[in-house]
């Protein structure tokens, strides 16, 4: 009986280990970047451009370099930053890449860093969800639904 008891305990542990092993690849594929407060600015239907905002956090142990943006509703999408000039104007600068250190968060917000969506082929209406993907090194793609609001 005692032998059978140990065998059952071993069997249970073995099954648990096997299930964990099965789960590992799934966990490994979880994106290390989480995105929150994602929204697209609602703009007039005749608009050719709009902007999108979010907060991204690198939850992983390694730095992640974002290299691009894509969405089906725009002909092109880019990361931009807004910088003040001495004459009181503000310039937008394209950011070709953005590196997030481990545990670092970055916020894209109105008047600051933002995603530019050019040549809109569909102007989302208030309340509509738009899928926007951040492209990172190693072919990593982090897609998120952005809600459209004013």
């Amino acid at each position: 009986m005692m032998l059978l008891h140990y065998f059952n305990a071993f069997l249970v542990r073995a099954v648990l280990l096997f299930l964990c092993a099965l789960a590992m690849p799934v966990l490994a594929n979880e994106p290390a970047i989480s995105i929150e407060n994602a929204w697209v600015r609602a703009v007039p239907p005749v608009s050719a451009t709009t902007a999108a905002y979010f907060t991204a956090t690198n939850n992983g142990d390694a730095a992640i370099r974002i290299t691009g943006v894509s969405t089906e509703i725009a002909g092109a999408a880019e990361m931009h930053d807004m910088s003040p000039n001495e004459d009181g104007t503000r310039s937008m600068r394209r950011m070709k890449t953005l590196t997030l250190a481990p545990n670092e968060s970055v916020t894209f917000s109105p008047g600051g860093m933002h995603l530019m969506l050019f040549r809109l082929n569909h102007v989302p209406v208030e309340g509509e969800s738009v899928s926007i993907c951040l492209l990172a090194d190693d072919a990593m793609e982090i897609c998120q639904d952005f809600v459209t609001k004013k």
Partner: protein
Amino acid sequence: MHWVRNGAIALAVALVGAVIWIGLQPQAPELPINTRLGGAVTLTDQHGESFNTAALEGKVTFLFFGYTHCPDICPATLARVTQVWKNLRKAGHGDDTAVVFITFDPARDTPEHIRKYLEFFDPNIVGLTGSAEQIQDAAEKYGVVFIQEEDETGVEGEESKGLFTHSDFIYLLDQQGRIRKLYPSNGDIQEMVDDATSLL
């Protein structure tokens, strides 16, 4: 009869006290008149008609420059000023106030395009465009700087060539069309409402 007399005295004392108390309250300073910038400009409105901003005299006006292909600051500013105007209307000042949007991108911002664009915010906003010379003249009067990106010395990337580097102040004009205050594009809505109300 004593209670009538005493009551009258108490009421008089209370009234005098209230007047003194109100008089001692700090008053918001009157908004200064900007004598360096501003002035009436003649442009074309969203209906294709000639429009001289002198026609807005008698109204307190919020005015700003922008362009409809602007993805970030301009639609946010329009939404903000529209909310200010909505609040003023709720307070009964709809007929005494106005909002004016002047484009510095006349090549793309035709009257028809501006009309459709402004309908999204409020069709009663006055949208103005004109020739490049007229726009430049209006911008100089208000100290507005705008530079269209044309090559890689400015914003990088092909997509950015239609963008402008620009100043983005909101101007508060009094009933004589004089500038009384400038706000940043993310100016406080209640502050703008209060300032406009103080000029009415």
